[in-house]
């Protein structure tokens, strides 16, 4: 089983990839990462900067399970996100949240380890099928090179698990239940990313618990989720939810998510 070591890109390596993305985005989407590597090496020679490293020797991770599984098991759309999020976590148990918000780490994984997965996973996107160069560039920058938790392919999987796992400490439900709810309900995931308030593990757990109990999580209606979360945000503007007891917090969240 191929457990290729992951090396974080250096700033220089990342900037070169950005440059390649602007001109030849198809190279990032190619399953054969050797072509991309060849292009990077050519750029270095052209710039006469052979002494500068593309990858950091000091920041590396050996996967516990091969990341090739992503490429082999890729499907179009979010159907397998929860399963893949669990697999990624088992494969990279020591990688930290600081690493997984670093675009040099994310780009390295997406471009040199799971490129086929990324391309297939986001195959529903209009940008994916567009022949326009600008659309292609936008597409690879979003899903291979960016660091947004909703759109970078590997960041999305890792953070889905992370949000569920951190909340599980305060929730009635275990990590797997929370992960399935968040990954199958994109409205909740986007609210988690958008609201400072829900970065609190305890508040997120209260929100998810009540959303599951009231069926809000399963209905997955954008307007309903957005309006209830806005209501909770308004409440949090007037009082500090962080210092409330569990019962008081639940009462406030219930008031916002399930008004009587």
């Amino acid at each position: 089983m191929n457990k290729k070591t992951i090396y974080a890109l250096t700033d220089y390596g990342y900037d070169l990839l950005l440059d390649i993305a602007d001109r030849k985005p198809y190279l990032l989407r190619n399953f054969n990462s050797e072509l991309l590597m060849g292009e990077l090496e050519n750029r270095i020679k052209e710039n006469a900067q052979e002494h500068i490293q593309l990858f950091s020797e000091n920041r590396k991770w050996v996967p516990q399970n091969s990341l090739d599984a992503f490429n082999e098991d890729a499907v179009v759309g979010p159907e397998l996100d929860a399963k893949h999020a669990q697999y990624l976590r088992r494969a990279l148990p020591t990688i930290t949240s600081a690493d997984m918000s670093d675009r040099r780490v994310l780009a390295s994984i997406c471009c040199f380890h799971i490129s086929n997965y990324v391309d297939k996973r986001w195959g529903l996107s209009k940008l994916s099928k567009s022949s326009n160069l600008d659309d292609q560039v936008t597409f690879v920058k979003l899903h291979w090179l960016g660091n947004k938790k909703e759109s970078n392919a590997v960041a999305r999987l890792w953070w889905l698990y992370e949000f569920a796992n951190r909340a599980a400490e305060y929730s009635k439900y275990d990590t797997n239940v929370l992960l399935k709810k968040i990954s199958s309900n994109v409205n909740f995931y986007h609210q988690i990313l958008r609201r400072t308030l829900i970065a609190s593990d305890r508040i997120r757990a209260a929100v998810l618990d009540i959303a599951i109990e009231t069926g809000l999580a399963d209905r997955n209606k954008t307007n309903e989720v957005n309006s209830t979360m806005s209501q909770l945000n308004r409440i949090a503007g007037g009082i500090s939810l962080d210092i409330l007891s569990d019962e008081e917090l639940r009462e406030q969240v219930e008031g916002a998510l399930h008004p009587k």
Partner: protein
Amino acid sequence: MRYAPRRGFLHPVLGQRDVYYEGKKFNVELKCYPSDKYKEILFSADFSIEVEAINRLIDRNEAICIIWIYCGRTSFREIYKGSSSNLRKIEGSIELQKLRGNIEFHPSVIATKDILLPLDEANKAFRSDGRNIRLISTGSPLAVHKPSYTKLEFDIDRGTKSIFQLEVDYNMQDGSWEINADPRKAFVVLSANENTRYNFEKFRSKGLAIHTLYLAAMVQALNILLYDIDIDIDEEDFSKWSNIIGRKLSELKIYIEFSENEAIKFFADGNKKYLTPLWVAQKLLENPLSELIFEDSNNEESGD
């Protein structure tokens, strides 16, 4: 709950608006720095509250000093409270592996139960109906402070300008900024309007932003490197800003010559040519002045 300049409350909140408690201040002295081994960020916050009514509530454990810390990149959000031995001082640490990029510190004083807030020191408007006491519910703010920000981008592969942590000092005079450096940290401290200007310029012209801020900061850092005897260079340890500069200098084959008889100087490998800190700073920042001139000439050509 965030500090928001225009947010109104139904009860007086110290620090939120001057009219709530005329002439009374809420100050929080915040310190934040990395630990020796660079595994954690350490912070302390000293609360100073001029409203006696709020102080009494804190002493009776009916209100609490808190600071909530938020890092958007890593979705970190935690609250920290004062200890039982000192209710107005908060100390804590956070593992650096949980943080990256901007970190926000939000200090406040919060009611921990439903309380009666005496309004003797508050603006008369709050007592206009003849009452001088108000019921405040659990979780409500009694004092809020403008947030402080710091930026963490340290690691061995970051660009050289990442040795500087940008901080905003709201008490600093408009238009001013300064560099504060010690062996562990190098801060660029900006006034609020200078920070706004910097962020604007950064998007308009990367070269201009570097030229106006980081180049000057780097020159000052290099002078500290030359003349501060407490600062040395260990290329294996990237927890200190001086070591990151040291490693980059070696890559550029620029060395520091220490001599008992002459001033300490930089020189280039091979030809013993002395280099000024300004020249070295430009090299470390990958020639921002050239970039600036190049950008300007491009703009002229395109008619911008």
